[in-house]
């Protein structure tokens, strides 16, 4: 494979795109899935946090900035990316350093998404290069902005098919003083989803609700905040969940972080063969869907709204979803298209948008349709 083009500035990147006469495979750190064919183009040369204003909860960074660097800068002021982007390396067996641009382009979000929102909800502005090599911007660096169409949301989760993101502005949040995790053992999938619904429907601000089925099923519920507050809410939640029996509350910071990292990065599937699917469904429908899925293993996040499934390549996960609203993304594996086929009118609109942003079809062709 030839060396990836690695522009050092936005202008240089725009020139490369304008001058390209074939498909381009866009990558940040190369740790997540990308387009198949085409000349590689990486944003890693565009690196650096250009603004962090803790008092305004905002951060601006060039797209190729390593996620770890962004997190370090934020942590130095007691802040963090609240959408908790997952690290795909363990699951996909990829190397390299994930970038902030890649996390945004793939709308990568973790367990906290169920309450605070996804990467797209924290993205305030973008600069990007479109398929004709034009440098464009949308949104800005302020938290409230309805000036014109919200292309910021559209760019988040467009997986490099609409443009190459060169800079992102993000809303950031304070990191909590302490975290507590309530653990419930031995629940069936259906009971676990009920328990998670009860917790998420309580006023006690649960910021993570996951269930790991298997021989020793474990349900996890996270609370974060000031110390006294977490203690109070943990106790209150034990009351709400008395029917299910909370076995203990993990308050050790390291152990708690490890539990949630395992959920976020789907560690249960690391090193195991098979296709990895990510299903977004209505939480209460998840257990029945899982029962007919034919998967080897699953984990539930987002109170059941997100199901990770490990399945043999022959298993048609999307067929099993017939009649259930939602969608399934193929995160690891070859064969079926990565993205869930869309109904015709939606597919037509998406096709039209791709043609408007990238009329020559150079960006990650075929990746999204």
């Amino acid at each position, binding site marked *: 494979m030839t060396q990836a083009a690695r522009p050092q500035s936005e202008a240089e990147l725009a020139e490369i795109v304008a001058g390209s006469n074939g498909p381009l495979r866009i990558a940040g750190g190369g740790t997540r899935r990308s387009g198949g064919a085409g000349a590689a183009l990486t944003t890693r040369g565009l690196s650096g946090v250009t603004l962090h*204003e803790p*008092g*305004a909860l*905002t951060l601006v960074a060039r797209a190729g900035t390593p996620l770890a660097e962004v997190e370090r800068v934020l942590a130095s002021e007691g802040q963090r990316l609240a959408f908790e982007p997952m690290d795909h390396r363990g699951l996909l067996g990829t190397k390299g350093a994930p970038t902030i641009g890649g996390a945004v382009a793939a*709308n990568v979000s973790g367990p906290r*998404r*169920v309450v605070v*929102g996804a990467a*797209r909800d924290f993205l305030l502005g973008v600069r990007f290069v479109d398929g004709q090599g*034009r440098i*464009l*911007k*949308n949104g*800005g660096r*302020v*938290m*409230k*902005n*309805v*000036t*014109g*169409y*919200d*292309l910021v*949301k*559209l760019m*988040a*989760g467009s997986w490099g098919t*609409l443009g190459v993101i060169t800079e992102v502005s993000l809303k950031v*949040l*304070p*990191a909590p*003083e302490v975290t507590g995790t309530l653990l419930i053992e031995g629940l069936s999938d259906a009971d676990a989803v*009920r328990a998670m*619904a009860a917790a*998420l*429907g*309580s*006023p006690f601000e649960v910021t993570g609700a996951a269930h790991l089925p298997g021989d020793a099923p474990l349900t996890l519920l996270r609370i974060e905040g*000031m110390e*006294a*507050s977490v203690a*109070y809410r943990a106790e209150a939640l034990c009351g709400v969940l008395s029917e299910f029996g909370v076995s203990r509350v993990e308050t050790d910071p390291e152990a708690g972080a490890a539990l949630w990292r395992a959920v976020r990065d789907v560690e249960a599937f690391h090193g195991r063969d098979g296709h990895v699917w990510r299903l*977004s469904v*209505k939480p*209460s429908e998840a257990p029945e869907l899982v029962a007919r899925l034919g998967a080897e293993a699953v984990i539930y996040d*987002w109170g059941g*709204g997100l199901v990770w499934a490990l399945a043999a390549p022959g298993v048609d996960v999307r067929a099993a979803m017939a009649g259930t*609203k939602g*969608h399934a993304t193929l995160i690891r594996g070859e064969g079926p298209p990565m993205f869930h086929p*869309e109904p015709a009118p939606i*597919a037509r*609109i*998406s096709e*039209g*948008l*791709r043609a*408007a942003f990238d009329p020559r079809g150079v960006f990650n062709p075929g990746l*999204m*349709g």
Partner: protein
Amino acid sequence: MEMPAPNPQIIAQKARIVKRLRAALPEGAVIDAEAEVRAYECDALTAYSCPPLAVVLPGTTEDVAKALRICHEAGVPVVPRGAGTSLAGGALPTADSVILGVARMSQVLETDYDNRFIRVQTGRTNLSVTGAVEEAGFFYAPDPSSQLACAIAGNIAMNSGGAHCLKYGVTTNNLLGVTMVTMEGEVIEIGGAHMDAAGLDLLGLICGSEGQLGVVTEATLRILPKPEGARPVLVGFDSNEVAGQCVSDIIKAGLLPVAIEFMDRPCIRATEAFAKAGYPDCEALLIIEVEGSDAEIDAQLARIVEIAERHDPVEIRESGSAEESAKIWLGRKSAFGAMGQINDYMCLDGTIPVSALPHVLRRIGEMSKDYGLDVGNVFHAGDGNMHPLILFDANKPGDLEKCEAFGADILRLCVEVGGCLTGEHGVGIEKRDLMGHQYAPEDLEIQMAVKDVFDPGWLLNPAKVFPLAATGARREAAV
């Protein structure tokens, strides 16, 4: 604010168009009598008005689709309308347009507490969405001050915010799905009870598109469990600068209040005269509200007070009860009304980085002297969304124009310091011609190209959002 000249051919065909609409829709859904269409001649930007050709008020998504198919075939522009409370002229018709109002579509279609969502027809008012789930201990978070009147339809179109969005986000962060009818009359479903899009995030694109991409008829909204309680603290300061610094310090300290509201002296004075909330006579005041159990609230307020005390406040008033909370909020909630007592006003909506607050307030004060028009500032300080209220006299010739010029200067200033033209009210016609200050021509071109995809004929709310000069060719090609 200029509007495009109406197309005389469409006006000439009025009778035929109305007849077709009547034939397709239930009795009473089509209004064309001159006296009756007048009720739809403007929204809350009342300085501009124009009766539409006709008004259609369907009761179902299918009827919306029928009406749109007819208008599409006849080449008639359509202006979608919710409750008509837009402050930006978003729902302003032209003489050759049909108003398509969803006000009669106000049903709750589904409530689901286990999965925490509600599905409604979009004509339902914002407050009555919370009303429908309140008894079960839930609420719908985005709370524009107009929430008693405004409809979910307009909230989605404008991506409306509210006082509590520092914690809960704006409409787009609380919207899970929509049913939308395209200008061609095709019904599409986007999103639903599950999260995130299967492919491109069309939901995020539609929210905030000001009625230019489709008519939204149903919405799935996220509902949240009500907090155990909430209480504010009021802090008065000697200067805007210090108040601004205090906001920044509270946020930096890792506290996340649900609301941080800011009022400056002109606004405090007007409010005191009107509502007698007993506010201190000072340069600036903050109302900071936190949520949780009683003990959690006490703990958070104690920290906020500790930070505020470092800034030599002239007064700190911590609420200890529901009555005291109401008293603290009274002035803030009557601020617009109070300013309205003094004179006509125009309410701006630019957002700035919080750090630019002192500079921007100082410049607004200077410009106020130059223009000879008074201005009061009341706004959501936590997120930098400003609402300068410029006072003018609508009956005095030239005053409106002067006020608009002043407003445009303030908005340009917002952009200059790194902010934007509108934080929650939308562009509509009001800020349409200022868009060039925030965006380069190609940034606007790509947005217009998005509209081309959804509405190639440029029939849906065509004269809004983009500078008229920039859309001319597209609108004329449609005729």
